[in-house]
């Protein structure tokens, strides 16, 4: 039975939730607003919130100067490709850890997570040299592989958590009915874990979309995704905040829309297993 909540308490909770939500969303809102300002008003002090000379000029300039569609396609291919490849590797890995754990499973999981603690710049030169040797520099395939490897520990961890929630008895029943390992994973485990896999995919697409170290360091003119697009508008010697904001808005818009429509799955994915 739901606990009774007083109107006053409900109002306070609502106000608090909206305040926190607005506080978190404010930088994005400010970026979007700035993108519609002339450069001079983008740096005005005191800042101009809504009453400024609204203009689309920054978007026209960005569109004219950069091939936005190429960057967008690269972002879609790299984030989608790396997530898909990661899921293909992570599902069997998480299955084995969740359902046939060894003495070392916990250690392996911790070790995988520990690789996330290594500063990326520490392995920049080895990776760069490998890319030169393999001809992967400035290629989408190279970035798909690298970003998949970076996010693989998170994918495995998330799937492992979901799989642990699935009763082993169901899988055992499938085995008793003669299901092969492949059939067990494909036709029994995966359908049951679809919500978890979906939220893992969404979260990893967002992580891959926003990755800005490897995508800047391993690309040049061809494979640069939207992170490289934004970086091309940042300047320490010149005030281009409005254009930078327009470029940022164009870069985050697709992922923001995706996040908006899939927020239910994302919240479910992030909180799965948190409350028993």
């Amino acid at each position: 039975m739901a606990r009774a909540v007083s109107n006053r308490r409900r109002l306070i909770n609502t106000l608090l939730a909206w305040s926190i939500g607005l506080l978190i969303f404010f930088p994005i809102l400010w970026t979007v607003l700035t993108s519609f300002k002339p450069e001079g008003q983008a740096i005005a002090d005191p800042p101009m919130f809504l009453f400024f000379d609204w203009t689309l000029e920054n978007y026209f300039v960005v569109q004219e100067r950069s091939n936005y569609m190429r960057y967008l396609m690269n972002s879609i291919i790299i984030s989608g490709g790396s997530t898909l490849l990661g899921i293909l590797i992570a599902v069997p890995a998480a299955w084995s850890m969740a359902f046939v754990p060894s003495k070392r499973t916990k250690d392996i999981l911790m070790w995988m997570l520990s690789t996330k603690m290594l500063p990326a710049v520490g392995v920049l030169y080895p990776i760069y040299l490998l890319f030169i040797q393999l001809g992967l520099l400035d290629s989408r395939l190279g970035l798909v592989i690298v970003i998949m490897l970076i996010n693989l520990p998170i994918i495995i961890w998330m799937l492992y958590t979901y799989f642990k929630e699935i009763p082993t008895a169901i899988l055992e029943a499938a085995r008793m009915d003669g299901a092969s390992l492949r059939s067990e994973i494909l036709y029994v485990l995966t359908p049951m874990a679809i919500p978890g896999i979906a939220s893992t995919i969404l979260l990893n697409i967002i992580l891959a979309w926003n990755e800005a170290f490897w995508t800047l360091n391993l690309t040049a003119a061809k494979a640069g995704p939207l992170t490289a697009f934004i970086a091309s508008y940042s300047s320490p010697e010149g005030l281009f905040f409005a254009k930078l904001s327009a470029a940022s808005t164009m870069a985050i818009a697709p992922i923001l829309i995706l996040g908006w429509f899939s927020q239910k799955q994302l919240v479910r994915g992030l909180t799965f297993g948190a409350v028993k």
Partner: protein
Amino acid sequence: MTFKSAICAATALTLVAGSAALADTITIATVNNGDMIRMQGYTDDFTAKTGHTVEWVTLEENVLRQRVTTDISTKGGAFDIMTIGMYETPIWGSNGWLVALDDLSAEYDAADILPAMAGGLSHNGTLYAAPFYGESSMIMYRTDLMEKAGLEMPEAPSWSFIAKAARAMTDRDNGINGICLRGKAGWGEGGAFITAMSNSFGARWFDEDWNAQFDRREWSDTLNFFVNMMSDSGPAGYATNGFNENLSLFQQGKCGMWIDATVAASFVTNPNDSTVADKVGFALAPDNGMGVRSNWLWAWALAIPAGTKNESAAKQFIEWATSKDYIELVAANEGWANVPPGARTSLYENANYKDVPFAKMTLDSILSADPNNSTVDPSPYVGIQFAAIPEFAGIATEVSQEFSAVYAGQQSVEAALKKAQALTNDAMEAAGYR
């Protein structure tokens, strides 16, 4: 089809295929500065003249440095032309990482490059990068506020005059700071300014045996003078102000004086962006009566990494982008105030350019900067706001962080200098200089 027409068609096809084979696509890494972006807009002119096409990779300055350093040191070959500065050029040239630009065509007129720029972009007398635009630093000041304060800016002021004028121009009630200077950590931000300023106070980074000199009185004088002046007349939170923050303050009429890159002159006098465009005067960067002024010297230049497959096309591009014709092209379309400054002597002899209000002071500032004799006492390094050794960027970034902590009130001048002395000597010892 007759035999004759078949031969003609085959010949035409061969010629077309041949010309297509000669046309290359070059990849250029560059910074997101106004002049560089303008150059991208004129790429079609280069393609029309040579047939070569260009792909641009534009990055923020610090990202670009990391990116091109990784690529050139591993011989990655991702770029055919790199935009680099005076700090990298002599170091990379001596490493054999750059193609020497010693065979540029006679029409290019390499002798026309300003000697200070050519010197800073050479190693052992060989040019390794062609300057696209060059800059020094100078004082930009509000003529109306100076007049209101009852003062007159000399063409070559001293630091004591600047401190006095800054105090007189400060009007806290109306949000006007007498002076705005860089305090932001980073060797190319606040580090560049304080190093150039220290030269005029008789300080230097190293003695002739590469020993750090932060324990000397000259450094203490520099830092104390800077902190006192900024406390009296600078903007709040100046410890985090760099070029852009000060540009914004100046354009909004909140600074009486700003000492920074000469390229800023075109921004602060542009009525579209600046509220004080018609009230700006210029003067040489201050000195302290010791024979060295506090202005720096810098150039954004185009260089070709050794081993590029498109060396010939890359050289053609450099000749086009840094030529007199390119300057004429920009002037014809966008006016003389918007041409890339500080690279060629002929620009400053051009009657049209002499009308640009900041042209003379920019040239005077560039000519008064000497990277080979930047300090009062002799030093073993080349460079004004930097020492052209590979270790400098890392050391100077750490030192400037210590200095910024002083500006933010987090530690004393003495404590910062003590730390700077220790960390610099440690790094130089580890690198084998001491």
